[in-house]
């Protein structure tokens, strides 16, 4: 899962044990980024 810290804007990788916290600045608000893969949408 890739997230982005809302304070320092750096990419953050979360693991099971670290809890929800930015390892660089300690901020607890992380934003989930849009997945980079192509998304197919059907129009109807």
């Amino acid at each position: 899962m890739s997230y982005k810290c809302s304070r320092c804007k750096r990419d953050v990788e979360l693991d099971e044990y670290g809890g929800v916290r930015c390892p660089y600045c300690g901020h607890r608000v992380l934003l989930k980024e849009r997945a980079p893969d192509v998304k197919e949408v059907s129009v109807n």
Partner: protein
Amino acid sequence: MADDFDVEVVTRDDRSARLLVRGLTPAVANGLRRTMLSEVPTFSIDTVRFVENSSVMFDEMVGLRLGLVPLTTPLDDYEVGESATLALDVEGPATAYSGDIETSDDLVQPADENVPIIELKEGQRLEFEADAVLDTGKEHAKHQGGVAVGYRHLQRVTVVGDADEFDEEEPNILRGVIETEDGELVHTEEFDADLTNRHPGKELEIEDVPSAFVFHIESDGSLSVDELTLRAVQSLRDRADELAEKVAV
């Protein structure tokens, strides 16, 4: 049903036309109207593959807007169900318009260049590849080639005498196309849809002309009005033939 129809063009340009057809029954007139809406196939975007969408709208919302962009349709080159590929890549600050869409086939193009898809701010980007599929309006309304297709009876206006001197002057509103006493066809817009402008102080008689219908046909740009009408007639005829064939033992 009469074998021959008499067709007169009242007004006509690329996207809309008014046709007077004589010798129709109401059932055939309505069948023709419905056929223009639901049986003439046009291209419309059906699936979109979003490579990047950092705009403020969800993929599905952008997709829905894209489906409604009219695309020119070369009916001789494609069968129903076949598809063409389109792509768009616009980076903000800019507005993505239908004219920015690139197509694999030059014959399949957005019918208008100025349909806004989405406004992009600084740093936002929209990139996608889409498949446009040829299908009919009965499958989905986005495939309708005809918009605002309708008909009215032709109305004959005859002057029967002078209006009573002490009659109140009330507007006599009539819409559609009228036939004058000398057989001339006049659209009521020409006299602001008010018969008292055309015949002041006269007493008039208005009657529907039997089996004469004035069609107003408007195309969304995917087909010309001529082709829309001809294809609709062909489709109606084909299906009538098919019915006749199946009923006959």
